[in-house]
């Protein structure tokens, strides 16, 4: 284990600064060990939310520095949702910056209300609607085409592999909202999927 230099006898003066340096190094090491293994997950969400590599990298870096600054407020439990919640806040700030005002996910993160109830959708003959496998790039595009509020729950569930409770923590909404939003998101994704199959059919 790393120990503060000041605890070493005969190694100088044991100043406050040295003790602080040791404690800071310990804290940084704990952060490296617990948070940084999730960097791919954080980067993945950033890519889907922001759409390009440069913005995603900036957001991930900002997220990590912010998380490190507030590491003392992390009280155990799963660190992944905690990090992803910070990343999401960074991304919302970026949406606001792009729009020059707060739009994008919306102030409350609520999806637009033009979402028709699921049961009003066209009743297709079930057998005709079976989905075929698409290649990975096509699927990534379909997810990227979803409105942000639906895109984020799909990424958090299908790619980041979070439970409903963890997703609720990230998007700061009740579990019931997570469930209904995910249902709506998958319905939209399925529509896009069927359209893509038609488009790529010979």
């Amino acid at each position: 284990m790393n120990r503060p230099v000041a605890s070493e006898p005969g190694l100088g003066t044991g100043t406050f600064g040295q003790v602080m340096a040791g404690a800071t190094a310990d804290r940084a090491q704990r952060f490296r060990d617990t948070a940084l293994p999730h960097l791919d997950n954080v980067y993945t969400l950033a890519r889907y939310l922001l759409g390009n590599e440069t913005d995603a990298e900036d957001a991930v870096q900002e997220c990590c520095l912010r998380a490190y600054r507030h590491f003392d407020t992390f009280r155990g439990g799963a660190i992944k949702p905690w990090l992803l919640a910070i990343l999401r806040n960074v991304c919302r700030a970026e949406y606001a910056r792009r729009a020059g005002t707060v739009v994008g996910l919306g102030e409350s993160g609520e999806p637009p209300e033009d979402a028709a109830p699921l049961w009003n959708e066209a009743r297709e003959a079930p057998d005709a609607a079976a989905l075929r496998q698409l290649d990975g790039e096509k699927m990534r595009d379909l997810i990227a085409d979803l409105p942000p509020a639906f895109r984020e729950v799909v990424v958090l569930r299908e790619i980041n592999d979070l439970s409903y409770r963890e997703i609720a923590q990230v998007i700061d909404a009740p579990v019931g909202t997570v469930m209904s939003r995910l249902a709506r998101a998958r319905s939209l994704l399925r529509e896009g999927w069927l359209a893509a199959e038609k488009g790529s059919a010979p």
Partner: protein
Amino acid sequence: MRCEEAEILLHALIDDELDAGHARAVETHVADCRRCAAQLRDYRDMRGMLARSTLSYEAPADLKRRIDARLPAPARPDRRSLLKGFAAGAGLSSAIAAGLLIAVVRTDRDSRIMSEIVSAHLRSLQADHLTDVLSSDQHTVKPWFNGRLDVAPPVIDLTALGFTLIGGRLDYIDGKPIAALAYRRRAHIINLFVVEGGGDRSGAATETVQGFNVRRWSAPGFSLWAISDLNADELEDFGRKFAAAQHG
């Protein structure tokens, strides 16, 4: 259970998020409803296809390095544990061991200086004691050190290059009085410590200590240590410009 309820809950069923009672209720409905059964099958298929594909992105190695560099450096192994290592390495020739020992002792001096510099930097900001001689004129600051130090430190005004000289003061590092020069870049203060000796080191290095960036380089007879909350790129730029102006 009605279809509109089942259409939401079947997702929770797929995701294994339903308690036993609700799961049974959805399954009972699906057994009697062709349309909901088809949806359940479809969404299960879709979820399976998503799960089998690589939809995640890998964070670039360069991004990982950048983040790592912005965090405070990990604590170095202390001297005693290194010496223990020597004792254990029976096959190590004494000549190599002696060489390593010198390296360890030097590192000790450097790390002591480093921690003193961080403390001195913090002290200068907290006690509002940045300068003893307040001047942006190098020809005022440099003579001020005469008689206060054995060797005159290099004092260079870099205002034209974006780093404004604020002034100088005496500080104590490694048990000796040394010259500290204060510069400003936008809202950031840079303290430059001019430490006598240790000028034999070749090359410059930047590291992060306690959230500050520290740039160290050598000039004949001196080692120079610049510390600031300025980002590493600009601090390196400061170091290069200072070194270039000194040689030029």
